[in-house]
């Protein structure tokens, strides 16, 4: 089931992998002696200019993968290769070289900006810390603010005076200040209202074209991920259980977990939703009949790596 990323996808578009994760495992310490494996044997590839969507429910380890790439979570096993350079467990000084090409946009727009600093400062700081002079940094910050749809004068204001959507634009602007090649987007729109979400997603797509960015797009919302991603990886309990192009994964899901996940997400169409619901109930009835024991675990979540007859085969 654990399909390795298809090499054809890269060669077809004629680009080399920008980020290559091999057998990544991340363990967190819980208390004194216990450890918890948040990510277990994950391999992923992202090509130049591509968006890889990473979906999973809470506790699936999707955020941890992003943090490991950024150096914010310890790499227990495996390797993270960025543009041919090994990133896993680099020291801070060595990592600094990559900080300009590897950036991040977080979920919570309320905590991702320092409330004690003006927006202008927050945007200029990445440049200043990489040796730009003050005037240049300020000019670039103003330009970037305008690029993401705010006014240059807004640089003098504090984060508290902006709405959630505006803050997320600012966070995106900050991420782009160093002209990165890969941006890790950790649930960038899940805190936003539907109408604002669309604005921000469009902005991210535009910026991707303009700056030639690659995205690792982490989210729990299946439809959002489908909309922005070229390829999608589905994560469950720290492992990738399915990976493929968006179309493949959404239209012909192979793994029962993916299918359950897709079936559970309600669609904004009453008639279709009724059909989907009935299909889901039918499948659940089938499943409980097939496996006499209580196959559906807590909250009806599927037990890990459950196989459903021939469904596991590739189509």
């Amino acid at each position, binding site marked *: 089931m654990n399909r390795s990323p298809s090499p054809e996808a890269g060669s077809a578009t004629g680009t080399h992998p920008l980020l290559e994760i091999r057998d990544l495992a991340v363990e967190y310490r819980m208390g004194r002696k216990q450890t918890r494996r948040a990510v277990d044997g994950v391999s992923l590839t992202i090509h130049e200019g591509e968006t890889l969507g990473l979906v999973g429910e809470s506790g699936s380890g999707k955020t941890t993968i992003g943090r490991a790439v950024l150096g914010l979570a310890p790499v227990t096993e495996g390797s993270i290769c960025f543009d041919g350079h090994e990133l896993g467990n680099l020291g801070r000084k060595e990592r600094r070289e990559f900080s300009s090409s590897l950036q991040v946009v977080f979920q919570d727009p309320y905590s991702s900006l320092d*409330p004690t*600093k003006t927006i202008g400062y927050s945007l200029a700081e990445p440049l200043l810390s990489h040796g730009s002079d003050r005037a240049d940094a300020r000019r670039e910050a103003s330009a970037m603010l305008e690029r993401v749809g705010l006014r240059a004068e807004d640089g003098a204001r504090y984060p508290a005076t902006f709405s959630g959507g505006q803050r997320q634009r600012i966070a995106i602007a900050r991420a782009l200040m160093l002209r990165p090649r890969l941006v890790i987007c950790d649930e960038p729109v899940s805190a936003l209202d539907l109408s604002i979400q669309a604005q921000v997603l469009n902005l991210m797509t535009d910026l991707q074209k303009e700056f030639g960015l690659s995205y690792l797009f982490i989210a729990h919302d299946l439809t959002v991920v489908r909309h922005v991603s070229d390829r999608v990886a589905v994560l469950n309990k720290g492992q990738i259980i399915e990976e493929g192009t968006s179309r493949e994964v959404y239209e012909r899901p192979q793994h029962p977990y993916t299918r359950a*996940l897709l079936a559970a997400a309600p669609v904004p169409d009453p008639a279709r939703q009724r059909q989907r619901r009935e299909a889901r109930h039918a499948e659940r009835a089938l499943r409980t009949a097939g496996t006499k024991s209580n196959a559906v675990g807590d909250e009806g979540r599927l037990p890990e790596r459950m196989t459903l007859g021939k469904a596991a085969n590739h189509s």
Partner: protein
Amino acid sequence: MTIATSTENSAGPSAGGAGAAPAGVIHAILRTPVGLACLIYLAIVVVACAIAPWIAPHDPLFQDLHAIGKGPNAAHLLGTDMLGRDVLSRLLYGGAYSLGGVLTAVVVLLIVAVPFGLLAGYAGGRVDRVISRVIDVAMSIPVIIILLAVLTIFNRNMTAAMIVFGLLGSSGLIRVVRGNVLSVREELYIDAARVIGLGPAQIAVRHVLPRTSGAIIVHVSIFAAISLGVQTGLSYLGLGVPPPAPTWGGMVGDAATVIQTNPWLLVPSGGVIAITVLAFGLLGDVVRDATSERAKTATGRTRLARRRGATADQKPAAAVVRDATAALLEGPNSAALLSVRGLTVAFGADDAATTVVENVSFDIFRGECVGLVGESGSGKTVTALSVLGLLKRVGRITGGSVSLEGHEISGLPEREKRRFRGTEIALISQEPMVALDPSFTIGDQLAEVVRSHARMKNKRVSRAAARKRAVELITAVNIPDPEVVAKRYPHQISGGQAQRVAIAAAIAGDPKLLIADEPTTALDVTVQAEILDLLRSLQAKNGIAVLLVTHDWGVVADLCDRALVMYAGQIVETADINRVFQLPLHPYTKALLEASPHLAVEGEPLPAIPGSVPRPKDWPTGCHFAARCRFATEDCLAAPVPLLKVGEERASRCIHTDQLMPEGRLVPEAVR
């Protein structure tokens, strides 16, 4: 007066929150009259004492034998003591000594506590453990006894004592700084700074320290108040500089000996200590209030909390119901289970009330499921809670009626409202984990609800019977091992189970209407599906009507029969569920549905709605959506737009519905 250890408490509440920029803190102090008064008083006292030799009217040691124990007079503004010495002059000179001691303690405190607190919080790991252990020990040292020892050893040298006091007191501030740093460290912008490539020292100084400054100022001002108490207390015991040198504490001591003949002397000496302590303490309060307010606006909102209803923005103008024509029908519909007419809700005090829900009317009939859909700030949650009369203190219903089966319920006193809560109308909240009391077991909480329903009906239910019913309820919401779960505390169960328990509590009284406020927003998608299934089966089995408050069109499509769409405090469209999705007849509904990535065309940008939802104080007189609407004309803003009837059982608050219809065949007519 309290002693060193109690400072820990002072900073406790604010420790979890965040601080603000130092400039912001000072600004906040100056903005409040109390803060300003305290600063001015302290400035005057400190300066006056510092320049005492130049401004004191008399020599503090000079004994005027002609003026012994005199009250306030022209020559001696605060009178003279029993040796004929000028009280004012002695206060000024003594102040330099007392306040100097406070300053010493505070400086030592800051020098020791801030770096160690930062270190413990930011470095974490072993460093943190060692520092925390040392603090634990230091917090239990009997401070006053140590000070007594120090005073003996250093021959009544108060400076030495205050240095030691600052040192011992620093453990409290280290804890506060550490706690603040730990919470700030969790914030995402710290991660962003690390990703940029900043080093730990740079991050600590640039991004962490400014956030803790509020808490530090709070702690320091209260510590200053306490050290002044201790310093004067020790002087009172005669352990400081020996007489006849003036000290504030010593003057209280002198006054105490002549309490019977000249009680006046207690007033200036005690007064100056009390007011100075008060000024320090109040300053701390002001800063704490200011920083915790900021913390709320800056970081208090999380993904889950954000979906609460409108914010309490202040608006100077009085709440005026602008839209008089919007009543769906004349008067409440007695055939409906719930009939809401012209409901208007305002936040804030009378003179500064802001209307957040405006003239909302709708009916819910037995057994049906109605979706109340809208984005944050639309007023949907406020509307739902007003039906139950459960608005928070700041909000109140300023107009309209809510009737249940033909009986008006909105104006009832609290006692009467209890009669229908739970038994007629029940509520399920958004965040299941906080909707249950963490201090009681699941079974106890359900049993309590069961018993209170029985009491309302003047029936007695024994503890055992209530307990049994609780287990039945847990079984009814499909939780495995109900007996075991009944004995658990809320923190021991999962979010999905907690929401099932909340539903069990809601159906305990066999209600006819269930108000579900974003019941699945905080849950994973597979759990959400289970909860929606549960609600559907309850609806089918018990014939409960459901008012589902949500922002998610998918959830509406899954569960609801009818939808009410809200935007900026108003209902903008109401229609049967199939028709809403097929042919939305309000530009907002249409735009919102289109903005969903679900219907997006691959490779094309999403049809986003420009701009953002206006805050209640910025609502225009006319259509609230006009500023973002592609069909808007001048007419839209000219006057309030009423809900217009468009076809059968459908209404839209738009004067351009014809443009939304394929052939413009339906002519909108006003709903009376």
